[in-house]
C-alpha cells in the first residue's frame, strides 16, 4: 500500500520550520523552565506531530540534548479530551491545533501545561478532580442492572438533540482552565467544597433531563446547592467560549441554578 500523503505533499513545502517554546517541569516539585525548539513540519501538521518530532530528536534550538517532552494524548481527533494544553496562552486541544497558520504568520508557538491542575511532568497534569466531580453529582442513570428489562424511556428528537450536545463533553477541562472561580487544588480532601466547574454542572443537567436519571435529581441539586456548587459561578462566561465541542455550558449553569433554587425552596418549606 502506498502512503497517500507521500504522493500528495509537494516537496517544496515539506520542510518548513516551526519555532516552539515549551514550559517544562521535571516533576511536581521542580521549578518550571523554558526550552526552545525549531521543528521541520509537513503541511497540514498539528501540534501533536510537532511534539512527536521533538520526541524523536530531542535537541533544543541551541543544540543542547534534552529529554522528550511528556504530554498526554489519545485519539488525536478531538474526541477523547486528553491533549488539553495552553497554546500561546489559550487553552485548547493540541491535536486540532494546526500549525500552518503560525508558520504563515511568522509566529512562534508557546506551549504550557494547564494551570488549574497539578503538573505531573512537563505538559501532563492530573485531572482526577474533574472525574471526582462527576461522582460528586452522581452523573449517571441509576441502573437496576444489566439484565434484559426492555427498552429505556422514549424521547423526542428535540430532547435528544439537547442531551446529545451535553453528552459530547469529553472532560478535557478547557472550561475549568478558563474559569476565574476555578483554582488549582492538589488536596483531594478539599474537592468536595471547591467550585465544581462548568463541565460537571452541565453533566448534572444532562442526567436531570433523562427519564430515569432524574430519580437522582434531588441528590445532584443538593451537591450543587452547597459550597463549591452552582452559586459559586461568577458568570464570567469564559467556559462557553473555550469549549472545543461548543457545548452550551452557560445554559447548563443557568438551568442548574434555577433547579437548585427550586430545590432549596422546596427543602425550606418541607422542613428537611
Amino acid at each position, binding site marked *: *500500500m*502506498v*502512503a*497517500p*500523503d507521500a*504522493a*500528495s505533499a509537494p516537496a517544496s513545502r515539506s520542510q518548513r520550520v516551526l519555532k516552539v517554546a515549551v514550559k517544562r517541569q521535571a516533576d511536581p516539585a521542580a521549578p518550571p523552565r523554558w526550552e526552545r525548539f525549531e521543528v521541520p*513540519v*509537513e503541511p*497540514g501538521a*498539528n501540534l*501533536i*506531530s510537532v511534539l*512527536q518530532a521533538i*520526541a*524523536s*530528536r*530531542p535537541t533544543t534550538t541551541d543544540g543542547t540534548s534534552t*529529554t*522528550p517532552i*511528556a*504530554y*498526554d494524548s*489519545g485519539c*488525536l*481527533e478531538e*474526541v*477523547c*479530551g*486528553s491533549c488539553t494544553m495552553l497554546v500561546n496562552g489559550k487553552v485548547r486541544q493540541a491535536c486540532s491545533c*494546526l500549525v500552518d497558520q503560525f508558520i504563515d504568520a511568522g509566529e512562534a508557538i508557546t506551549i504550557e501545561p494547564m494551570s488549574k491542575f497539578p503538573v*505531573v*511532568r*512537563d505538559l501532563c497534569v492530573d485531572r482526577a478532580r474533574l*472525574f471526582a466531580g*462527576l*461522582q460528586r453529582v*452522581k452523573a449517571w*442513570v*441509576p*441502573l437496576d442492572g*444489566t439484565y*434484559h*428489562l*426492555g*427498552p*429505556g424511556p*422514549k*424521547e*423526542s*428528537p428535540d430532547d*435528544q*438533540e439537547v*442531551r*446529545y450536545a451535553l*453528552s*459530547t463533553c469529553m*472532560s478535557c477541562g478547557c472550561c475549568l482552565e478558563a474559569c476565574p472561580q476555578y483554582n488549582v487544588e492538589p488536596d483531594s480532601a478539599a474537592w468536595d467544597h471547591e467550585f465544581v466547574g462548568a463541565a460537571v454542572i452541565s453533566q448534572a443537567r444532562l*442526567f436531570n433531563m433523562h427519564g*430515569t436519571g432524574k430519580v437522582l435529581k434531588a441528590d445532584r441539586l443538593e451537591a450543587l446547592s452547597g459550597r463549591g456548587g452552582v452559586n459559586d459561578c461568577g458568570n464570567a462566561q469564559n467556559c462557553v467560549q473555550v469549549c472545543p465541542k461548543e457545548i452550551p455550558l452557560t445554559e447548563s449553569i443557568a438551568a442548574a441554578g434555577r433547579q437548585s433554587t427550586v430545590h432549596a425552596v422546596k427543602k425550606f418549606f418541607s422542613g428537611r
Partner: protein
Amino acid sequence: MASGARHRVIVVGGGLAGLSATLRITEGGIPVDLFSIVPVKRSHSVCAQGGINACNEIARQQGYSEHEHFDESIYGGDFLAHQPPVYEMAHWAPRIIDLLDRMGVPFNRTAEGQRDLRLFGGSLYKRTHFAGATTGQQLLYAFDEQVRRVEAEGKVVKYEHWEFLGPVVDDEGQCRGIVAQDLRTMQIRAFRADAVVMATGGCGLVFGKSTNSVMCTGAAASRCYQAGARYANGEFIQVHPTAIPGADKLRLMSESARGEGGRVWVPRKKGDARDPRQIPDAERYYFLEERYPKYGNIVPRDIATREIFSICVHDGLGVGGGNMVYLDLTHLGREYLERKLGGIIEIYRKFVGDDPAEVPMKIFPGVHYSMGGLWTSYEAKPDFKGLRYGAPGSMTTNIPGLYAFGEVNYQYHGANRLGANALLSCIFDGLFCGAGVVNFAREQAPAADAAATAFDAAKSRRETQMKELLGASGTENPYAIGKELGVEMTAASTVVKSGPRLEQSLETLGSLRERYSKIRLSDSGMWTNQTLAYARAVGDMLVIAEAITRGGLERQESRGSHYRTDFTERDDDRFLATTIATFDPQTGGSKISFEKVETPLVEPRKRTYGKVEGGGAPKAVASPHA
C-alpha cells in the same frame, strides 16, 4: 463459599469491552481492579463513529431477523469466524441496544421518539443504531458512568495511568495476576487475581499511521503472546476505505457517511484537474455503484478498499493523479448532515479546512481494525446455535484464567469485520462472557493466598527489563525504529500482499529487531518516562508484527481482508482454518499452524456481493510489487 468475598478479578483496558466486563463482573458479586494506560473515559472506543448493529422491529417486519444478522456477519467475514459465538452475539444484540437505551445513551430519534436507524455496510436492511456520528463515544460514556456508579459503591478500584507489563503465570500454567507499572512514579508491582480479562484493543500502531489512538500498540496482546498465549488470524487487518491522511494519524470518515447516502467517485477522465463541483454527473465514475449495483457504496470494507486502491494505483484515476478519491455528501443538505453526521463533518472541517456540505471530501483507505487477536475458545450449545451462558470456558485464552474480550479477542469477525459490529462484539463479550469469568473466579482457591514466588519473579523480570532499557548504550533511536516498522508493515501486510514481498518483510523485521537490540533512550529518568514506555512497546510490536507477517505468508489464499496476488482465490480445502501463531522463546519468532473452522450453521458460499464486471473496471487487483 466462605472465601467468596476474597475473590478478585483484574480487567486490563477501560474501553467498551473492559468497562462492560467490569460492570458485569461486579454485578456478579466479585470486585474488580481495573487497569488502564489512560483515564478510562479517554479509551479508544471513543473513536467509533457510525453505530451499533442489531435486529429491530422495523427491519424484522421487512423480513430481517437475528439469523440474518448472523448470516451477514459470517458472509461478511468470508466464513472464517466460528459460527456459535457470532450466532449468540447477533441474538443478544437487540437486548444490548435496550440496555444502552436504559443507560441513557442519546440515540438519534424519529419524530415519534423511537430509536432512529441507518444503513451500514454489508446489509440491505437498516439495522444500525446511532448517536450522531460519535456513537462509540456515547456508548463508552454510558459504561464509564455506570462503572463510576459501582466505583462509588466500592466495587471497583481503578488503576488509571498504569500499564500492563505481563500476566503472572504460576507453575501449573495458570494466570494468577498481572505485573503493571505506574506510568507516573514508574513503580512496578505485581497484582493478584482469580481471573484476568484482557480488553486491550487493537494494534494499529504496528502499521504506523492508522485510525487508532496512540495507545493502540498491541503491546499488551504481544506480552500475553510472549508468555505463551496463542495469537490467532493476525494477518487479517481491516483497512477502512475512507480515512483522511494526516501527519500524525489517519482520521476516520465513518462508513455512516455512505450509509446515509454519501457517494464515492473519481473523474472519468484521467488527470481531470477541474474543481469537483464543476464536473458534471456523466463525467463522474461512481465505480462502487457501477460495479456493485445491489450494495453500491455500502459494500463491505475490504471490498471498497481494494476497489479504491485499484482505481488509484492501477487505473491512475485518483484525484489529481494521487491516492485520493471523492466521498461526496454535498447532495444531502447541510441540516441533514449536521443532525446525522455532525461529528465527522466537524473533524473534516477542523483537520482539512473544507466544508463537506459544500465540497466533496478527499479520502483514502487507512489501517483501522484487527480481526485477529488472542486466540480464545468457547463453549457452544449442543446444537451449535449459540453459547452456553455463564460457561467459564468461553473467550478464555489457552492460559487458564486469562480471558480476552473485545478487539483483542479474535472471535466474531472472521476475515473481515462488518461496520457497526465492533461496538457490539465488545459489549457482548463484556456482558455475556463476563458471567463466565465470575463463575471461573469463584471456583479458584483465592490468589490472595497463593505463594509469593511467581509474583516476585514476574515483577523482578520486568524491573530488570526496565533497567536494561534505561541503561542501554546503543546508537539506535526507538522512534525511528517504530516509524520504519509502520512503513514496512503498511507496505507489505495490508491491502495487497504477495509471498515474495512477505518474505522480504520478514527479513526487514529481522533487521529492525537486530537494531532494536542496540537502542538508546533519550530519557533515562524515573518519573513519567514516556520514552521508556514507548521503547518497550516497540519491542513488543516487533514481535507481534512478525506473527502477523508470517501468518500472511503461510496463508496461501485470498479471503476477506487478506488478498494475495499469488493466490487470488479463497481455498476452503486448505484454509477454512484459524491461523494460530505460537511464540518460540528460542528464536523470538512465531510458529504457525492452522486449525480447521467448522461451519455447522451456514455452509460457505461464494462471496461476491453481486459484483458485475465492466464499466471500464479492471477485473482484478494486480500486484504493485510484481
